[in-house]
């Protein structure tokens, strides 16, 4: 599989993703890697029907995503990965899927999280995952829309959570 783009965005398939980022990715498929969505048949169906024109949408867990990535049948397929959180992205990368750059678009605020930008809130688990990703030399590109300036998420994490 040829990785065109990888993004964390817990709204998954929505306006910014279908119009701008899908065109930027120019991939055959969107693969959503999320245990939570994978276990929820209605959400799966909702995401599949919202696929951008000309793109297939698949929803898988990390294990299945690694198997599909290594399946020679999909060697020439281009893919746009979507995640809801950095831990599953980290698990995929540690499983051998070579994502070089991870775009971080949106992670909504929930109890127990701290807001680091207008669109991104993190808990301690997220912070640990991002720091691990940085150590694996994954480029962490914090950008909601394409025209935003690129910010390394670690700068924002250090500002809010303090340095490691």
């Amino acid at each position, binding site marked *: 599989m040829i990785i065109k783009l990888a993004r964390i965005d817990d709204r998954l398939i929505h*306006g*910014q993703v279908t*119009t*701008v980022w899908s*065109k930027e990715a120019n991939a055959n498929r969107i693969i959503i890697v999320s245990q939570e969505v994978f276990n929820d048949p209605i959400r799966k*169906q909702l995401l*599949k*029907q*919202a*696929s951008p*024109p000309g793109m*297939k949408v*698949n*929803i*898988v867990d990390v294990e*299945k995503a690694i198997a*599909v990535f290594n399946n020679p049948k999909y060697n020439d397929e281009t893919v746009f990965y979507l995640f809801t959180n950095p831990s599953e992205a980290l698990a995929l990368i540690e499983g051998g899927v070579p994502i070089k750059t991870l775009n971080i678009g949106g992670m909504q605020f929930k109890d127990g999280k701290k807001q680091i930008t207008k669109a991104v809130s993190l808990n301690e688990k997220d912070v640990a995952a991002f720091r691990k990703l940085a150590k694996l030399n994954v480029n962490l590109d914090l950008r909601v*829309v*394409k*025209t*935003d300036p690129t910010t390394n998420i670690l700068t924002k994490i250090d500002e809010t959570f303090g340095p490691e």
Partner: protein
Amino acid sequence: MDIILVGHANTAQAFKEAVEMVFGKVENFHPLSFSPSEGLEELTKKIETAINPQKAEDTLILTDLFSGTPYNAAAGLVMHHKAADVIAGMSLPLCLEVALSAGQMTVPELVKHVMANTNEYVKCLSEVVQESQKEEDDF
């Protein structure tokens, strides 16, 4: 390319804000309102003032309703070569398609591209679900 948006009431400004929420800044989008107190002539003047005369050939006007006053005013200007073309049917998907393509195409190319994809702009869940069920399952 310059894009002039003209809609009934304040819809044009709202569409620009919506585009910026999804796409990001669009400095080349110029929204104009149309209020009940304005007539065809007044609106025509307002649109003409918003167009850079040096860029008439590179200016596309988007209006909301075909044969509404914003469209009629824009059509008059295009006929007089004050702008390149006008598309009626302003919607968020249309505006986004224009925002995405404006930097890479001439007005005639963009018009051709947009008009070939208009069936993507209106969708209904029950029809989409029927379509997507014909397709393969997960891997």
